[in-house]
């Protein structure tokens, strides 16, 4: 069934991404917005927009019945969940199906199988995909957790059973940390997924986070689009992603790809999904979980394969076959993504909501800006901090890094603090350029990150003093003979920003 009108059950940059994909296919788009989001970019860009309730996500972006009701009222025939919110909620997928709406994502059963991380681990085990040792069930109590952790051996990792995106994850180095880590992980998991259960895994030392993108159609076609390396993380939140991984060669890619496709097939998976692995220093990979949705970092795969993942999601949801096989998927060059978050990396990474008074995005050759904001927009305090994703492509990893350095230097956000300065220090770090990555990279590098190198102190002082000087001069009568022609002096004209 052809999709004619689609409701995007999300906000921010991913809602904008989906709207763009729909527009290119001639699909009309319906945005939804909470009371905090009337002026959000996705509302401005969609063909239609409907209010869905208060700022709190639980009462708006997570309100299944409201969303299905708006979709029907707007005459939509499909729903795209984006990532986060209800993207991995089988109840929502089922409610869409029950209402006759095409859900742009996997069948509810596949979401359920993979959403329950412990069930997913059983599928992986049954399909001979290697895994990190851990519990196949959530731990029922602190006491059980203590016993299991001891059996596995510290350090262990706590993970949300219904999780994804790093929420509810905690590394526990030794037993005394366990109780507090369980509390924090459960609280975060409960808040994020409405289910506080956690399970345990043995922590792998200095692992890389490498994930495989898969696409599966409703006719049995399954392909993988290669890997993304997402080892640059802070508190399990990815910050920099790339494809290909500097640690993966064609042979390893093929083996990981086969393992990922095997899991997708076993789960009856349809649509775009991602199989996450840890890769250890010896090149062994271990299944972590499968994310049954589009990932934040999907653009790096798009840039190297030339395959538009949102377009493929929409085609697959409409029942079309992939129309190509594994041999048709080719990779060219290297792509890197940096997440520009409204956080202050020099003040404990505190979120930095507020009004973006100045915004100049990077552009030019092979620079892609997937943004959810605009100049004048006020970043609300209710949702995550992701403002925009900056993606570059280059013929090889070195060229891509050079381009990312250039693009980050061009990207200016004024009014809220962002991760840009620390991203610049990451991509210029010798270990990053050498491809020496692990999930511990950022913790190792961050202590050396400086707020201000004071490289531009003199210029800053000159700018500040001239602003004051001109403010003083404007208060005086205009000098005789002063002209106002093109190219002449213009400081202090009306509108000096407050």
């Amino acid at each position, binding site marked *: 069934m052809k999709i004619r009108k689609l409701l995007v059950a999300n906000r921010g940059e991913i809602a904008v991404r989906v709207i763009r994909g729909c527009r290119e296919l001639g699909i009309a788009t319906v945005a939804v917005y909470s009371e905090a989001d009337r002026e959000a970019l996705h509302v401005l860009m969609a063909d239609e927009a409907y209010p869905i309730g208060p700022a709190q996500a639980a009462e708006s972006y997570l309100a299944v019945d409201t969303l299905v009701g708006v979709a029907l009222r707007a005459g939509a025939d499909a729903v795209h969940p984006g990532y986060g919110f209800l993207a991995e909620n089988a109840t929502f997928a089922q409610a869409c199906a029950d209402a006759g709406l095409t859900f742009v994502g996997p069948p509810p059963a596949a979401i359920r199988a993979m959403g329950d991380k412990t069930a997913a681990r059983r599928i992986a085990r049954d399909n001979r995909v290697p895994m990190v040792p851990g519990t196949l069930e959530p731990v029922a109590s602190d006491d059980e957790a203590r016993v299991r952790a001891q059996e596995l051996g510290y350090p262990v990792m706590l993970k949300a059973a219904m999780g994804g995106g790093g*929420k509810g994850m905690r590394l526990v180095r030794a037993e005394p940390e366990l109780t507090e880590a369980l509390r*924090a992980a459960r*609280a*975060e998991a409960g*808040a*994020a997924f409405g289910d506080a259960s956690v399970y345990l895994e043995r922590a792998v030392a200095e692992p890389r986070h490498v994930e495989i993108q898969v696409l599966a159609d409703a006719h049995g076609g399954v392909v993988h689009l290669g890997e993304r390396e997402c080892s640059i993380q802070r508190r399990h939140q990815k910050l920099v992603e790339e494809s290909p991984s500097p640690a993966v060669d064609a042979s390893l890619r093929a083996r990981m790809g086969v393992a990922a496709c095997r899991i997708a097939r076993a789960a009856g998976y349809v649509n775009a999904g991602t199989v996450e692995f840890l890769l250890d220093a010896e090149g062994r990979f271990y299944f972590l979980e499968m994310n049954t949705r589009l990932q934040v970092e999907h653009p790096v795969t798009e840039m190297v394969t030339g395959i538009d993942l949102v377009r493929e999601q929409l085609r697959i949801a409409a029942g079309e076959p992939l129309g190509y096989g594994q041999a048709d998927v080719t990779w060219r060059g290297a792509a890197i993504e940096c997440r520009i978050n*409204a956080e202050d990396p020099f*003040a*404990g*990474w*505190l*979120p*930095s*909501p507020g009004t973006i*008074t*100045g915004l100049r995005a990077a552009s030019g050759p092979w620079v892609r800006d997937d943004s959810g904001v605009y100049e004048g927009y006020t970043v609300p*305090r*209710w*949702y*995550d*901090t992701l403002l925009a994703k900056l993606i570059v492509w280059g013929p090889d990893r070195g060229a891509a890094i050079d381009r990312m350095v250039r693009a*980050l*230097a061009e990207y*200016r956000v*004024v*009014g809220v*603090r962002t991760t*840009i*300065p620390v991203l610049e220090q990451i991509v210029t770090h010798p270990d990053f350029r050498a491809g020496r990555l692990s999930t511990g990279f950022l913790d190792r590098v961050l202590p050396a990150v400086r707020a*201000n*190198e*004071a*490289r*531009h*102190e*003199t*210029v*800053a*002082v*000159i*700018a*500040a*003093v*001239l*602003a*004051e*000087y001109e403010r*003083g*001069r404007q208060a005086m009568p205009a000098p005789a003979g*002063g002209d106002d022609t093109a190219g*002449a*002096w*213009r*400081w*202090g*004209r009306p*509108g*000096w*920003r*407050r």
Partner: protein
Amino acid sequence: MAPVKYVATLGGRSEPVEVTGGDGRYQVTLGGRTWEVDARLTAQGIASLLVGSVSHVADVTDDAGRCVVDVGGETYAIQVEEHTRWTIRTRGGAAAGPRGQTLVAPLPGRITRVAVAPGEAVAAGSALVVIEAMKMENELRASAPGTVMEVRVQAGQAVNAGDVLVVIG
């Protein structure tokens, strides 16, 4: 024209700056060196500066009397005063440093945990309060050692930016 004398204060350091010129072309003297500066506002709050031919773009905003300058990806908060005014203001000697700490909410959110109680001694870096905002838990820590005098919030409470959370003596 006689130069106009200012004092720019940045990060606790104050330094004299002199300016002459106008109509976009200035001579600015600081740190014993004079710079030829060609400066234009290209848009509201955005200045293009050619400092001895080196090109910079600075976003200049005003924040409660201080000038906040974003340049080359770095942010500087600078207080600029006319030299005479600065002299008068600082004649009495530097004011005594602040005593104690008052922890205020750096952004609106919900308190998810209070880690200290009145009377408790804290070390620099001790966790005081955890605030949840924008889907993240953010731990707020003591900047110096001291004793907790007051705890004004409890877990579950919503707070606004600037609300006093904990007072340390």
